[in-house]
């Protein structure tokens, strides 16, 4: 890795040369490698942070598959897919930005950072549209889950059991035992709402005969959905903050072959944000 021009004897020279070198390091390389290791460790903590949520997801999905097969149809695959692509593009531009910083290509660096930032905003914009839609229809967590609008189609009479479940708990549902469960003919309403993106959703719904009784505790899916995407969204926001800061510094011309660590490290962070979305997307949107 090291181009080995820095032996320990030229250290003092390096000290004088690079104002970015902190006093307690011997060389820029040592400083860079330390920062990088630190960053990787931090990323691992991020992964574990999300790991907890993935755990909650896995446990509930495994035990109550019917909730997931039913509820995911309220999510818009197309918007999710679009956002996936947005993040992949932003990852590419970020990786390019790192490269540009390393090679001292200032203009390219600025452009790439700006593009990344644009993608981040686009992502949040789409997310906002999705959230708003859920909000409007009461597709929320916990007690706030209250299907509204076209989605609350009254189909109590239909007693077709919910999507097949392995766990057996759904099969035990005794319609007389509880206050009447909410039912909804979800997909049509949604399809109408989102317009052109809707067909896939409607198809999927037909395939799986979920017109029947709504499974119990569907709100759990939305709880998990909002926590996962919410926490991810917060990370995107944080990324926007940091990238903006990078952009300003890059305009000032701070980065070059001698000093690109901040770009590199932010890049790593941004890729993890992308990486998490890569898992969130199929797990939340593409069930079946």
């Amino acid at each position: 890795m090291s181009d080995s021009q820095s032996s320990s004897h030229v250290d003092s020279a390096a000290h004088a040369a690079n104002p970015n070198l902190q006093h307690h390091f011997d060389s820029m390389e040592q400083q860079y490698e330390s920062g990088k290791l630190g960053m990787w460790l931090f990323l691992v903590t991020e992964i574990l942070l999300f790991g907890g949520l993935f755990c909650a997801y896995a446990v509930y999905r495994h035990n109550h598959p019917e909730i997931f097969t039913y509820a995911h149809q309220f999510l818009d695959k197309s918007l999710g897919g679009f956002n996936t692509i947005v993040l992949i593009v932003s990852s590419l531009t970020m990786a390019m930005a790192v490269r540009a910083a390393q090679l001292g290509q200032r203009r390219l660096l600025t452009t790439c950072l700006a593009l990344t930032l644009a993608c981040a905003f686009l992502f949040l914009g789409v997310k906002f549209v999705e959230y708003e839609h859920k909000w409007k229809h009461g597709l929320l967590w916990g007690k706030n889950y209250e299907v509204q609008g076209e989605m609350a189609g009254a189909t109590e009479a239909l007693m077709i059991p919910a999507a097949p479940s392995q766990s057996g708990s759904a099969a035990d549902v005794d319609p007389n035992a509880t206050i009447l469960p909410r039912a909804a003919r979800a997909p049509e309403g949604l399809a109408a709402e989102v317009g052109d993106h809707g067909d896939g959703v409607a198809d999927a719904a037909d395939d799986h005969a979920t017109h029947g009784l709504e499974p119990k505790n569907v709100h759990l899916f939305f709880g998990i959905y909002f926590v996962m995407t919410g926490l991810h969204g917060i990370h995107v926001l944080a990324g926007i903050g940091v990238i903006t800061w990078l952009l300003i510094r890059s305009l000032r011309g701070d980065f070059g072959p001698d000093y690109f660590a901040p770009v590199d490290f932010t890049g790593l962070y941004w890729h993890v944000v992308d990486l998490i979305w890569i898992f969130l997307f199929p797990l939340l949107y593409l069930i079946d």
Partner: protein
Amino acid sequence: MSTNDTPMTPAVVPENYLNCSSGFRSWFFTLDHKRIGVMYLASILAMFLIGGIMALMIRTELLTQGQTIMSSDDYNKVFTLHGAVMIFLFIIPGIPAALGNFVLPLMLGAKDVALPRLNLASYHLYVVGALVCVLSIVLGGVDTGWTFYAPYSTTTNTHVSILTLGAFILGFSSVFTGLNFIVTIHRMRPAGMGWFDMPLMLWALYATAIIQVLATPVLGITLLLLIVERVMGIGIFDPALGGDPVLYQHFFWFYSHPAVYIMILPAMGIISEIISVFSRKHIFGYRAIAYSSIAIAAFSFLVWGHHMFTSGQSELMNMIFSALTFSVSIPSAVKMFNWITTMYKGSIRLDTPMIYALCFMFLFGIGGLTGLFLGSLATDVHLHDTYFVVAHFHYVMFGGTVIAFLAGLHYWWPKMFGRMYDEKLGRISAIIITVGFNITFIAQFIMGSRGMPRRYYDYVDEFSLLHFISSMGSYVMAIGFFMVAGYLVKSLVSGPRAHANPWGSAALEWQTQSPPVHFNFDDDPEVCNPYDYSRVQYDAASGGYVRVPSEVKPA
């Protein structure tokens, strides 16, 4: 004693990290790991005092049956906050962030930790987290127990969200410290110091840091979910909403069991240093101790379910977790054997740090061995959530970590502040604390195994005598602590100047003056085997130990 009355008090204090600059900003915004360590030390001791006072309130309430000094609601809040303060604010940052911060770069012969700004950020987060926790106390407290079990914690109307937010912030502080230590140990080792030439304290801190980095984020997400649950009613842990309260316990213990090894590993590191130095003998089984630290760190992730044997966890998991639990006790046993063997044919000097180290082995031995009763399924069913558990974890956390912390504090005190403390008082108070501690908690073992449940405001007649004894013991312990506080403060003001190497250690931190200069070393220290004492010789003239040049005595 040998060091007390030595007539070496230089007229002027040489410049050092303490006096090289002054003013609030020069401390609170310093990047110097030593100052950060000292600030941490002051903060955690303050928290220890708060936690200790709450402990005395608990014991006083339990002195007699029925109401003694407070209502049951207040009692519940007091033990919750006692636990939370002691764990999140005192013991987890205790050794790594306070003592570790101070000695880690010194032991590496480095100028600072690798990421000094992160280090400072970690301290600031600690302060913010502590303030948030204190806020929750001021607003009226929290009554869930330090484990915040759902659904009680999601339904009680005390200030759970604030306290958990505080703990969440403290989690980040802890992660940053750990992360920093890993990077520092990887990247800042001096030329000539391979992994197996490091002092064992560094191995211990390294293993601790692994746990901090890998486990703490899960605590973060747990607490976050708890807050979200309370604020928005998300329902993941709340059975009333279809959630699963046992899942909460998995989340919580996935962090909190490894966390107990965050507490004990650095303590073991300190003991490894002290036993060797004060026996003036190479540590026995260096590699075994080093590897066992890593083994403990790795295994610690696989045993969290032993806190859930009666919680509704499945029998299969109970079996697996019980089996794995015992696997952690083996590396601990290995360490105990190695320490004792290190003393064999040594030249043992019973100064205060060594007294504490011996007390550590006594108390941690009891604490660890009682862990075996708890790790075994059938006995844990009987003992779970009784005072037996309370006694177990005080023996390991107090008898283990706190005693080791005190050992380390006394050991590095001369290095940190350049002054000696009253050696005789040191030994006496160490004994008082140990005796008081045993009175307090042996009584709890007995009542626990006889069925006294924990977190009980009141108790049946049968346990009156034992509770009374236990409370008395805690007062004895408190006396010991106030003595320690007294002579340490006195030492700061008027203690005799400390030698650069008063104990005769061969590790690098003793090669600089006491207290060290701002950038730690005037000249690069000479890297050497930290447990080879042949080149550290007593120098009667200066009353401390000096390195003899290698020509005279080849290593």
